């Protein structure tokens, strides 16, 4: 079919609808390496301005770390730029397997398989290990990539209320007749920043003979005393059957993901997971950088300790200033505003004050739960956060929301 005027108009009208609904996403161009201070061109064509970045997943500040960059350069020199092949034809180098072994050791699992991204890992893992005789029971707030992966799998789908162990138990009882049960959850929930009750989930999994799959993308490298993830934080290392995670956030932030866990499950992914089978894996230059990241993290907890301090300090500053934040201990700190327009207005004004944050609202979060998600990094120094709270306080005063309860904000701005 030709791309006729009618076809074009149809898409133009759909795009206009997205814009009218206030859901149109626009990129902001960064004229600098990823860091705590970045130069941002926004709107397009405006001269770049220096702002403090409070919305990156650069938790450990390793995205532009000189040792990671040097290792990536060396990887480029020694192993080249691309593989021009999928893994099982001629797309696997010694360093790919080395990175998988290092990740296995770091996560305390039995084996690991790299994927082009964690989105791909989640898209491929369930179909590879479960059949129509099985059931997947997921927390309702899992990441979109898990939802997509579950939809690609023939096993029965079910969900439980967010972090509600009694509801999960009901579901496990309901599905006792299935061959295999798999509980699926995020480790740290990306929009709320809360940490999964993994110890309780493991206890239920043992009682009802279920496997456990955790997406630790917002945890690997910094949650837990030595940064292994939520399984370390909750004292259940070695008890998680599948961990999916990313190299695209704390672990250097370039790209790539993995499935790590029980040897047979990982091998099933190597045999059957379509995103692994039908696309190139992580480029050599990124593998070399990720190996350096793991070396840095295995040698010291300094960066995750600093991140922990930053998160605690930022939470304290926001609370003392009178903002309504989601309680927790992760470096994801949502500032609750409830009203979608208010969230967008506050984010826009903060940008004008030199603070880069983004407003989130329905359908990304539940209706009436609009917020600004702030994210801390080990790259932040105390002065970044002190400057950040100055700007937040100024904007918060302008909108009259400091010290206000949820009800009062809703009364003032509506939902």
């Amino acid at each position: 079919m030709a791309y006729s005027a009618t076809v074009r108009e149809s898409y133009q009208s759909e795009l206009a609808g997205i814009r009218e609904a206030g859901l149109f996403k626009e990129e902001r161009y960064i004229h600098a390496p990823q860091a705590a201070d970045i130069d941002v061109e926004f709107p397009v064509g405006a001269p770049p301005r220096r702002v403090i970045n409070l919305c990156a997943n650069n938790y450990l500040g390793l995205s532009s770390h000189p040792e990671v960059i040097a290792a990536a350069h060396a990887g480029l020199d020694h192993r080249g730029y691309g593989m021009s092949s999928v893994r099982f034809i001629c797309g696997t180098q010694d360093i790919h397997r080395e990175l998988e072994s290092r990740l296995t050791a770091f996560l305390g699992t039995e084996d690991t398989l790299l994927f082009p991204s964690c989105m791909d890992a989640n898209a491929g893992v369930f179909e590879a290990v479960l059949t129509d005789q099985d059931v997947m029971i997921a927390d309702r707030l899992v990441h979109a990539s898990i939802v997509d992966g579950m939809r690609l799998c023939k096993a029965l789908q079910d969900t439980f209320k967010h972090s509600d162990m009694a509801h999960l138990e009901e579901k496990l009882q309901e599905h006792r007749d299935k061959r295999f049960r798999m509980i699926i959850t995020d480790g740290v929930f990306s929009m709320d920043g809360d940490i999964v009750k993994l110890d309780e989930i493991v206890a239920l999994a043992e009682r009802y003979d279920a496997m456990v799959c955790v997406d630790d993308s917002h945890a690997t490298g910094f949650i837990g005393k030595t940064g292994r993830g939520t399984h370390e934080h909750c004292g259940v290392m070695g008890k998680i059957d599948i961990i999916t995670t990313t190299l695209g956030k704390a672990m250097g932030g370039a790209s790539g993901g993995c499935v790590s866990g029980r040897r047979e499950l990982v091998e099933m992914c190597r045999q059957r997971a379509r995103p692994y089978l039908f696309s190139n894996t992580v480029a050599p230059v990124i593998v070399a950088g990720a190996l350096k990241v793991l070396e840095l993290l295995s040698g010291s907890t300094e960066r995750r300790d600093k991140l922990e301090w930053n998160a605690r300090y930022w939470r304290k500053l926001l609370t003392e200033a009178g903002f309504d934040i989601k309680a927790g201990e992760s470096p994801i700190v949502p500032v609750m505003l409830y009203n979608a327009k208010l969230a967008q207005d506050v984010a826009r004004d903060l940008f004008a004050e030199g603070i880069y944050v983004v407003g989130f609202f329905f359908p990304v979060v539940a209706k009436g739960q609009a917020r600004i998600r702030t994210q801390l990094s080990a790259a932040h120094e105390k002065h970044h956060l002190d400057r950040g709270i100055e700007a937040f306080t100024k904007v918060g005063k302008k909108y009259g929301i400091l010290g206000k309860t949820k009800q009062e904000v809703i009364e003032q701005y509506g939902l």
Partner: protein
Amino acid sequence: MDDIKRVIRDYVVKEYLEEGDDREITETTPLISGGIVDSFSMVSLKRFLERKYEIQIPDAEATTTAFDTVDSIAVVVGRFQKARA
């Protein structure tokens, strides 16, 4: 509210509302477009209805529009009950 509608409403309240969420669910409350039920978790509602009323609702019929209110869900259930009879 007739029996089927009451069964649907009670299930929605139990399955989808968080503890402490005292929103009233009526026959016309928008469930999916209103953000109470999402398309990902509505599969348990469909399965519950199929089991409870011994019917099969094809996926193509279990759309987010057809499942948006207690009223519209009851219409779907009624249609497949008739088909079974």
